[in-house]
């Protein structure tokens, strides 16, 4: 079991897309093996071993995950940054979907709607910093 330390949880908690906080970058891989990356601000931690991301657009990310791609999510307040690697699950019903739907709808006054929730099960945690050596911390 991998669980996120407090400082990691803090970096990835931005449930209402506060623009003063840094964006998180969600990377997946296409069928031909090439990386893909999309920014998100609707992200929060669930328990201490999952990330919940609200999807309004991100069509390529969604199709990559449906095709079996793993997920990497990273953000940075330079020179400190964190990356989570894990397995993604696209959900279009249930409590996580209802949660992101409500938050996105509230944030944009109903003009932008949630298409899905992306739940990432945390499997590896990295502390990114400009230095030599391995960065994996869990």
């Amino acid at each position, binding site marked *: 079991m991998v669980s996120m330390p407090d400082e990691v949880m803090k970096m990835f908690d931005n449930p209402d897309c506060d*623009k003063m906080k840094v*964006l998180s*970058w969600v*990377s*997946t*891989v296409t069928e031909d*093996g*090439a*990386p*893909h*990356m*999309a*920014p998100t*601000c609707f992200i929060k931690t669930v328990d201490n071993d999952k990330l919940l991301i609200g999807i*309004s*657009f*991100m*069509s*390529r990310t969604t199709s990559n995950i449906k095709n*079996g*791609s*793993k*997920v*990497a*999510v*990273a953000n*940075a307040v*330079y020179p400190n*940054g964190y*990356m989570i*690697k894990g397995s993604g699950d696209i959900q279009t019903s249930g409590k996580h979907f209802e949660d992101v739907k409500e938050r996105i709808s509230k944030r944009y006054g109903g003009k*932008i709607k949630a298409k899905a929730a992306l739940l990432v099960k945390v499997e590896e945690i990295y502390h*990114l910093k*400009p*230095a*030599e*050596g*391995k*960065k994996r911390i869990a």
Partner: protein
Amino acid sequence: MVKMTNEIKDIVAKQKPLPIATADKSGKPNVVFVTMWKILDDETLLFVDNFFNKTRKNLEVNPNMAIVVYDSDAKKSYQLKGTVDIENKGDKYTSAKEMADSKKLPGKAAVVFHIKEIYDATYGPNAGKKLA
């Protein structure tokens, strides 16, 4: 040929740090943030490998790379996809080494990123639209 517009080049030039995504052979993505690069021309960026670990290993087996640039003031974002050449000698390496030396960083290699596709990544209905 895919060319960056002046608007995209301006964002590339001023963004710090810049996230770059690579993938290993099994298809697992990796993201790191970099601060040292320069625009070589409208379709090429030069990144300096100072502390690449997984990124370097991935690029050696899978030269595909994606970067996203973001201008928070203009609320514009673009994704650039392409392939890289890793160079340990020649003009581009010399240039990378000079940039690294000026900050007392290792400058292990020049990672020359050839842009093949450009996508709109701005939050909104055009997200994911291929621009070039």
